[in-house]
């Protein structure tokens, strides 16, 4: 196999499908992650994020399709390629009987490009002493130690699977700061899955959203936010039933109001709204979290009327 060039995408996933038994977990997923990007991988629980990560890291085989990392087929990742990939799974596992220092020594023995300064810097950031027993660390400290172990080899590609899971805000912030340290060099790539949209919003250039085992969005954070629009329509009387508008994600009818969340809004969509004859149409800005919840949440109409006018 020829040595991959740096112009290639770091991760290339091509029509990847994964089944567990007869259950399809990931369906026909195609995704490329350019070098130097910070990629947020989003989706609700059970949508196949971790499975996808495990497949392109060669820990599981795809049922169909393929994945390449740093130019190597994921099914045959050589040790040299693994040495260039930092991977932090969600469990933040450490050997409890080792001290922090021993954890570092053990990990360092596998990586020729181990950077002890980075290791110690991250430890200091998380206020970890080398003599501490790994098994006695708090969840946040353990996450810090794992991050130090992952960052010290200075990986070209950092893959983090829900790294902030279960951490308090301070630990999360420290984790993000440490994580971003790796991108001080322009060709370093971070691919991370998370449920914490504020973190994603803070650091990610692009996001990929899995919904119902299918990739539904692959865009910049700004594009995602811009493409999802929220309108509040006010009516004199009870709002009419929600019409069948293309791109409708969610509608809530309450008393004299109708709130609609739409995606990929076009002028035709606005004509649909005007056709309802509301008193006013008010666009509302959404945070990434709100946009994401609407995007991957329950579709359709929700109503809530007081005074027994209409219930659903």
């Amino acid at each position, binding site marked *: 196999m020829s040595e991959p060039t740096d112009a290639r995408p770091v991760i290339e996933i091509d029509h990847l499908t994964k089944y567990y038994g007869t259950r399809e977990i990931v369906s026909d997923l195609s995704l490329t992650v350019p070098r130097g990007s910070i990629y947020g991988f989003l989706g609700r629980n059970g949508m196949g994020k971790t499975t996808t990560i495990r497949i392109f890291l060669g820990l599981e085989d795809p049922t169909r399709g393929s994945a390449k990392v740093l130019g190597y087929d994921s099914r045959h990742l050589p040790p040299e390629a693994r040495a260039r990939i930092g991977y932090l*799974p969600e469990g933040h596992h450490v050997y409890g*009987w080792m001290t922090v220092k021993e954890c570092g020594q053990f990990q360092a023995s596998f990586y020729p490009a181990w950077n002890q300064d980075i290791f110690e810097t991250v430890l200091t950031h998380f206020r970890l002493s080398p003599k501490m027993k790994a098994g006695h660390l708090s969840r946040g400290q353990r996450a810090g130690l794992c991050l130090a172990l992952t960052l010290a080899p200075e990986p070209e590609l950092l893959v983090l699977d829900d790294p902030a899971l279960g951490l308090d805000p301070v630990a999360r912030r420290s984790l993000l700061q440490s994580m971003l340290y790796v991108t001080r060099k322009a060709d370093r790539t971070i691919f991370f899955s998370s449920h914490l949209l504020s973190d994603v919003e803070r650091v990610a250039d692009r996001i990929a959203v899995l919904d119902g085992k299918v990739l539904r969005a692959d865009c910049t954070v700004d594009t995602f936010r811009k493409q999802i629009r929220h309108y509040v329509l006010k009516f004199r009387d009870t709002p009419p039933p929600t019409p069948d508008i293309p791109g409708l994600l969610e509608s809530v009818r309450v008393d004299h109001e109708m709130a609609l969340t739409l995606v990929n809004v076009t002028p035709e969509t606005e004509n649909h709204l005007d056709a309802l004859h509301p008193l006013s149409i008010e666009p509302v800005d959404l945070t990434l979290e709100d946009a994401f919840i609407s995007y991957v949440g329950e579709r359709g109409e929700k109503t809530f009327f007081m005074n027994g006018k209409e219930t659903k």
Partner: protein
Amino acid sequence: MKAMIWKELRENLKWAVLAMIGLGLAEIYGLYYWDPYNNRDNGMFSLDKSTFLMATTFGCALTGLFLGFLQILPEQRRDQWATLLHRPVTRGVILRGKVVAGLVLYLFATVPPFLVCIWLVAAPGHIAPFVPGTMFAPIADLSAGMVYYFAALFLALQRGSWFGARVLGLFAAVHLSIYVTDGGEDVEVYFHSVIEAAVLMGLAIFIAAWGAILGNGPFRVRPWLGKIALIVVVLYGLFGLGDVARMLLTVGTFDQRGNTGPQYKFTKEGIPLIVWGTSGDIEKVADLDGKENTDPRYRGRLALENILSMQQVAHLIGDPHGLDLTKRFPRYRSYYTYFSPIEIQSETPLPIFWFYLPEAKYFIGFNVRTCKPVEIVDRTGFKPWGTKPQPFQYDPMTTFSGRSGETYLLNEGKTVHVINLVKEKMFDLASPDGAWIFHANMIRIPTAVPNVVEEDIVLVTFREILVYDLQGNPIATLPFHHDVDEFGTINFSLNLAHDRFFVEYGGSRWIDWSIRHLMTSYFEIVDRQGNVLNSYVLPALPIGAPQRNWVYYALEAGQTPAFWYGTVAYQNLCSALGIGHYDDRGINPFYPEWSHPPKVGLRILLVSLLWVPIAILLARRAHFSWQRTWLWAVFVFAFNFTGLLAFLLIADWPVRVPCPQCHRKRPIEETLCPHCHAVWPSPKPTGIEILDEKVPVAETVT
């Protein structure tokens, strides 16, 4: 790999210490355990003591399993395992690191307790000699324990159901254990063959485990060596399972009564009768002329008292062709192979406990009070301990044939040493004219007093039987009246008055069973001068082969053609080279079908062929290519039903779901539907997709 070894050693050292303590306690308990129901072991302080070997057999196996599982299972939680495998080394290196550390820990857990036990046994203060050969059995158990260690690795690493191919790794180790522990009494198992078997089986299971960690589960992605090892492990696992199933099936379903035809038996006066009946019941009695004997003494319960078998009437005194029935295979796990305790019945405690050392070929006596060796007996007589022994001349396993009470006979060909270990006397009996003594034995004659017997010494040459009393005084010289070359299976006895001697001549052992069972026998009653008083001709009686049921035939036809024909070819080759001959079963009239290998072979082939279409059908149904289908079909044919089971357990059976196009089931891994050739449809757009163009973030090349 060094870091991996260090980590594994540190992580599991405490468990190895725990195992060492547990195993050590079990072994010491086994060494000192006094089993009230096992007289053979009691008082023996040996590394071949059955309770000690029970501790080593099970203890080493459990230690191996324990350490193997502990190295893998706790680390196999999804993320933890992913962290381990993601390290920039090959999975082979990870496994090797674990295995090196695991074997060090296993040896750390098992060797020190064993060394302590050796020290306990070898240190003075016990009434038993320490013979280094007694270490073989525990060493074999220790080696087998390593196989269990690899079996645990295999079980933990192999994907799939615990009840499928995985658990067969354990049964492969069980199969080895059955061999190591000399499970079949009639199987000749040598120490070196046990070690070879353990090494080979351990290697096969290790390679199968390596194949399992290398691939992410499927058979097809394993390296060739891993595939072969997995097949070997699964086949041997099925054989191990078959061993257990066979034991369960054959109990109560086989007819194991042996010969169901009539037999010669004798009255108390030495008159032969033809008797029908099995399992101790006498159904019908006839005289030699075939007429039914109506004597009431030979009917019902009285018949059991008044009709005796040849063994009750006379003692087998051997065969002049060296096929001595007293010769037994030296079982490497039995301390009798290394030292034979001499149990002497005595009303008063004897001051010395004697052992015979078969390898060193002399007796050694321990003072029961001081527990120290005090005397030896060699070919020159009784000597104090410390004197250099002059070993007896011949292989004691064949010459140490006569012992009864306190008197022992050691046959050296032309001289027999008569040794009385209680009176501490030894004298020699030489053949009268330098003839070869092919057998020497003690004859016990029951007296009127219960449990009291009178003993005589019998020497047998090619010409005559010589009878002496215990002091070596001649009683009788009885020349043979038949050609002992042809009729060399001789049973002999005499009456209490020493004036009637009973001699039966049967076909010699060198003659094939197929011929021998058709030969006439002779029974004679002779006087002290060798004159024949009565002579009976005993024509060959029809053989009543045991009745067989379907289980027997199923087991016979279920043998693998590969192994069965391999054995036949091996035996043919050995026979051609003059280094062996067909197994006894091949010429045994009790197994007539084995006398006709083509008949059995045809049966095996036909049954084996039966599974081939089933294998082809299953493979094609699962959309295997024709090449894969035929490979599996040949495999199933070669290994019969076992092969079919292995095929079902090993092959990559695709998961199939309905095709969105034609709705027939199609394998999820195939791109095209094998029925309608449609590709898998892409997920339908829902109109909410947000996809924008990607711009490479970094164009720089470092």
